[in-house]
């Protein structure tokens, strides 16, 4: 019944072609010189800003994520509507995604599963090391061994077994790129949905062809999202949208939050060189430098790890700090009616001194910023240079 309700909601929203007709060219107005450049620039700026503002908002997010990336490797992925073909594009975007994913979600784990010829196959074990996954994509990806039909059921079942071992305090997600319009399953996929829900697994699917009912049904009933791409840029945008930690939406005791005790060790080098010593984690491997556990002072050779002597989780503070900008987001700047046309038009501390265009101000410190600084502050720096 749930599925039918979900369908009704979509119908109420209406189709794009039923919408009132928008005269998009009315937005373009010529400036005094009869050129459209100013109007186009303004639209570009609005677009750039819109992309950012969407992501703003303080919500509880699950930063510790357990993710299975499912890639379709069936014959449908050899289709050349994306250049050079669907698989190559997917692999390229997957590599970008993995780098960004570990950048934004420290302490998370990822595993890659592919499905072809009616089977699902695990490419990488769940691990927190991005190089493992990128290497696997590079070494196994270019074989272009695309055949048969994918199996959504097998892929999700395999993902479920992988995620079953994930610790209870993290999210459990399946992110799927699905190029085929068919799925060759050994059983009824609707029987799997309650099991996925029981294990609180969220399934998200990107469709590369057109909308498929079963994909939509699986996503809707596991509180995931089903998106169908329009072009390569859109594909990139959706894939990038998966990188920030998702807001916690599952009210059924989503993740059981825990307070984890962690140690932040110092890296030490023996005073006299060359001296090798043995670390506590690899008894037979001499090391040149190591990290000392702050609780028991035993030496380990790499981070993050668990102290083999006192079982304290050892991490470096930068690993955790990568996610802190989600907790302290910079307030979005508001557009002012100032225009940075000359140097003298702005207060001396303005960062907008040399660039033409709109001027934006921080709502708390009232400092003016140019568009470039606005975007840089909100997408990379995450500090307002005027406030701190």
């Amino acid at each position, binding site marked *: 019944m749930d599925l039918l309700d979900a369908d009704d909601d979509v119908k109420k929203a209406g189709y794009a072609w039923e919408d009132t007709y928008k005269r998009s060219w009315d937005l373009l107005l010529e400036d005094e010189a009869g050129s459209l450049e100013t109007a186009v620039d303004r639209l570009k700026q609005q677009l750039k800003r819109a992309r950012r503002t969407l992501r703003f908002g303080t919500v509880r997010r699950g930063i510790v994520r357990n993710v299975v990336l499912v890639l379709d490797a069936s014959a449908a992925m050899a289709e050349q509507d994306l250049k050079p073909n669907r698989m190559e594009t997917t692999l390229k975007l997957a590599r970008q995604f993995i780098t960004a994913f570990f950048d934004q979600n420290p302490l998370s784990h990822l595993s890659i599963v592919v499905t072809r010829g009616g089977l699902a196959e695990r490419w990488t074990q769940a691990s927190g090391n991005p190089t493992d996954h990128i290497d696997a994509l590079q070494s196994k990806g270019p074989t272009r061994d695309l055949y048969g039909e994918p199996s959504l059921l097998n892929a999700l079942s395999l993902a479920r077994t992988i995620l079953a071992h994930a610790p209870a305090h993290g999210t459990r997600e399946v992110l799927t790129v699905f190029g085929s319009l068919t799925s060759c399953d050994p059983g009824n996929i609707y029987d799997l949905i309650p099991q996925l829900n029981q294990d609180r697994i969220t399934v998200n699917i990107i469709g590369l062809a057109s909308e498929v009912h079963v994909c939509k049904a699986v996503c809707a009933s596991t509180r995931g999202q089903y998106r169908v791409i329009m072009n390569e840029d859109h594909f990139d945008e959706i894939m990038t949208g998966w990188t920030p930690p998702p807001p916690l939406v599952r009210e059924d005791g989503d993740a059981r939050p825990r307070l984890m005790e962690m140690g932040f060790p110092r890296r030490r080098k023996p005073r006299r060189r060359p001296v090798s010593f043995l670390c506590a984690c690899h008894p037979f491997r001499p090391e040149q430098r190591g990290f000392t556990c702050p609780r028991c002072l035993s030496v380990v050779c790499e981070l993050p790890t668990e102290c083999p002597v006192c079982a*304290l989780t050892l991490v470096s503070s930068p690993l955790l700090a990568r996610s802190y900008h989600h907790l302290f987001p910079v307030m979005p700047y508001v557009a002012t009616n100032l225009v940075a046309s000359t140097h003298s038009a702005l207060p001396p501390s303005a960062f907008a001194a040399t660039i033409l265009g709109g001027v934006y101000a921080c709502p708390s410190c009232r400092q003016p910023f140019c568009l470039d600084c606005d975007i840089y502050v909100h997408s990379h720096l995450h500090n307002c240079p005027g406030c701190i």
Partner: protein
Amino acid sequence: MTGTLGAVIVDLNPLGWAQLARVQKQDDVFEKVLQHVLLYINAFLGLRYDNHLLVIAACPNQSHLLYPAEPQAAAEAASKPKPVNVYEEFHTANEQVASQLRAVFRQQQAQFRAAGGGDDDDAAATAARRAATSPTATAAEDAAHVAAHLGVAKTSATAATSAMASALSKALAYTNKVKVARPDMEIATRSLIISLTPDNPAEYVPLMNCIFAAQKMGHMLEVCKLHRGDTAFLEQAAHITGSNFIQVDDVSRLAQTLLQVFLPDQETRRWLVLPTKEDVDFRAACFCHKRIVSVGFVCSICLSIFCAPQKECIMCGTEYDISSLPASLES
């Protein structure tokens, strides 16, 4: 080979300088250090025609962009007569950087005296004596103690430290703007931090944000430390961005360190074996009391760090699973 946009961030905390003067037994240590820094700046500008300089002062509560000067001030300076036998850029940089640094430094000293309501030299002398007699007490504790003693207890945490995150944010935003404005120009960028004060734990998150932004941009954060306080965050900055962290104990050797370690550009450095600090302090600051901790409790939802276990996360409001908490909190 490309040009370099080099930012020099000078810590102008009056307390830090007073302590340095006592430790080095030189009253005019600021002027001496300034001469060494100017020497470095000249060498940097002279090294390549397309090297660009940025000078930022980090003060206790704020930071100031000192060079390049504001358009009006620059125009004013340009109208003054210049000596004919000096390379123009050396002259303008020397004049402006020196006068601006001196002006801001004097202003900071005056502010500090006004806030303290007394002669800070005496207090600094006490601090220096204590530092000399008890090697275990850190400079940070001393500085905080001095500030508290002077009756500026309210600002004691900030008075003893400088707004390094603010200075770095400005340097990075400026660097980014230069890169965006001239996408065709290849330019290497880096920042040299001349540190006089220990880390301010309250700045942990902004400072780490700066470090990651710098890392993404390939911007090296180099640290030249002139004091003996705790600088876990700056150590991490140098480590993460793959650059050098040097502690200079004798100020008269500052120029040598600056020229030898911090002058070569990124490309040349690959062929040099430069000294750096091998020990890196990976400690973090807790969110509840802003203390630097080596063992902390981390929220599994938002990864906030706390120095003691608690029932509910103060950042995201999550209530923790009872079974995971230590027995003392369960009741």
